[in-house]
């Protein structure tokens, strides 16, 4: 991506790579220092639970950017993107389970506790390899990407679009949820994977590890954002938005829209997988609830609230909505679902371009007022 051409509708691109990475580094350093170096008695001290919360938000933001790539630019309303997030999370969770080794409650040298509990004698074949961190990382990307590729290949080739495609994505995540609930699947059933101890030999409960995970999440968000931006600013991005606006016309120019869709959908799924993988060690658990259709719908609301088709709006929406959720579920837990619904209705009806769109409109209106006010009284407006 280093030489991704920046040209066209975006106008002359001021290389944003340095800026985005710079902002990410500043955030990371400030939070890190305020947690690690500033004493707990100080008013400036950032407690570790806040660091972890921020790390979670970064993962959500990365997931939202991934969805925006598909929804905002490709025009596919995926109601199942949570599935790719969850698969990345499970891949990481499997590694963390293997990391526990003989320190489990049952003390089995290889088998995770839930397998011993189910009276299994050997490790299922698909759990092999996950003792290696590197292998797990590959799977974090590969499993969601492969699923997206196969799903997309079938769906796009048969030219399924619109609501039908959305329903299929929703069905996909629902089916996975039901499958992962089953004990026989070998992913811990409805309890999922939990009780992780450490990653790369670092204690997951320690403040330093938590800061480290937060740093990784923020950097992954920056990298994911830059990757997505590189894609949408390239010519491929222009083809993709052309497909969104008129797939038949793109085809009549000699392109194969299904291949473009497949590429973007797969990249997006891989990004979602990375987000899930970073999320799991921070929250300490992954269970089939992550596949719940509602999670994927919430994700759509984040992107809609922030402003779809802008990437940074999606990230902003994820952080804001999740902040509201953290606050509401702490204070008035019964209100949250209503608030979520209300947000979606409000955004759909009055803020079709989300917060980012509102900000742009306000700026433009303000600029007009300023220029209007500076005009001499009685002057004729052309």
């Amino acid at each position: 991506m280093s030489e991704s051409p920046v040209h066209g509708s975006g106008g002359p691109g001021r290389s944003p790579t340095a800026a985005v990475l710079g902002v990410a580094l500043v955030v990371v350093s400030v939070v890190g220092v305020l947690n690690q170096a500033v004493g707990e008695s100080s008013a400036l001290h950032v407690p570790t639970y806040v660091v972890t919360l921020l790390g979670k938000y970064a993962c959500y933001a990365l997931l939202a950017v991934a969805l925006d790539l598909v929804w905002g630019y490709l025009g596919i309303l995926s109601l199942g993107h949570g599935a790719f997030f969850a698969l990345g999370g499970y891949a990481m969770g499997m590694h963390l389970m293997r990391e526990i080794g003989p320190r489990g409650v049952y003390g089995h040298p290889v088998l995770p506790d839930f397998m011993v509990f189910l009276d299994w004698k050997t490790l299922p074949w698909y759990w092999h390899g996950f003792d290696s961190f590197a292998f797990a990382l590959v799977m974090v990307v590969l499993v969601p990407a492969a699923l997206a590729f196969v799903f997309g290949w079938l769906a796009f080739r048969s030219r399924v679009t619109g609501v039908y495609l959305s329903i299929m994505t929703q069905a996909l995540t629902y089916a996975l949820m039901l499958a992962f609930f089953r004990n026989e699947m070998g992913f811990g059933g409805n309890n999922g994977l939990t009780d992780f101890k450490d990653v790369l030999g670092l204690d997951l409960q320690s403040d330093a590890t938590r800061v480290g995970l937060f740093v990784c999440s923020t950097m992954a968000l920056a990298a994911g954002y830059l990757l997505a931006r590189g894609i949408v600013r390239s010519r491929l991005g222009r083809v993709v938005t052309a497909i969104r606006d008129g797939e038949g016309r793109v085809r009549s120019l000699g392109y194969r829209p299904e291949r473009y869709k497949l590429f973007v959908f797969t990249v997006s799924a891989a990004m979602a997988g990375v987000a899930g993988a970073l999320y799991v060690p921070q929250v300490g658990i992954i269970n089939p609830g992550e596949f719940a259709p509602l999670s994927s719908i919430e994700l759509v609301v984040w992107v809609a609230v922030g402003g779809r088709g802008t990437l940074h709006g999606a990230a902003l929406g994820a952080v804001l909505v999740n902040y509201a959720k953290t606050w509401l579920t702490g204070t008035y837990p019964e209100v949250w679902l209503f608030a979520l619904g209300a947000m979606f209705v409000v955004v759909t009806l009055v803020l079709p371009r989300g917060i980012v769109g509102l900000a742009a409109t306000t700026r433009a209106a303000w600029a007009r007022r300023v220029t209007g006010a500076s005009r001499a009284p009685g002057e004729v407006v052309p």
Partner: protein
Amino acid sequence: MSLVGPEVHTPTLLYLDGVSVSFDGFKAIDGLSLVVDETELRCVIGPNGAGKTTMMDIITGRTRPDTGRVEYADGVDLTRCDESEIANLGIGRKFQKPTVFEHHTVDDNLELALAGRRSVAASLRFALGPEDRDRIDELLATVNLRGLRHRLAGTLSHGQKQWLEIGMLLAQRPRLLLVDEPVAGMTAQETERTAELLVGLATDHAVVVVEHDMEFVRSIARKVTVLHQGRVLAEGPMSVIQDDPLVNAVYLGE
């Protein structure tokens, strides 16, 4: 001027043979046969619903005929190709309803249409080269949109969109141009320019123009094919067609 002598024969580029297609039992195209030479300007006229647009849909692979053959260049059977393959064989189309990418700039619309580089990998690596820029400049001049190159295509007037779409058609460097009602919504001056452009193109391309505007057809037509109820009613030079009683009955007299 009119001393062409015996008909100059250039090789055939497109050959439709006994093509039929029905929609829910309604025969939109009914045993249609048509021969288009490598360099010619063919006008296709006919009342609304005659099947002119459907004929173009069949040539470009949008609609599969129920029966018949569509042969292109050296024996390629277009009924076996899909839309993108057909486009890449050098068949370009301007749609009846102008279809440009409204959220893209005029420049970007032309750039998307530039010949070649259709794969995902090529698009990802693509950077506009100097010859591409020259080509786009040239196209902008041809279709008279230079001053509007950075405008979003959705903000253009109907006639300008028509022009942009013609520019996109040329950008593809096709051998066969299928042009569906190009002058709808154009001013008299724009119409005249379009006529010049199409006549010029026909010296080294095959151009098939569907048009309702009889004045326009008279101004460009060498050979006219009249479609009626999905079949060829008459074919020949405009002067002959004009006086054909059958044609007058179904169409011109309207």
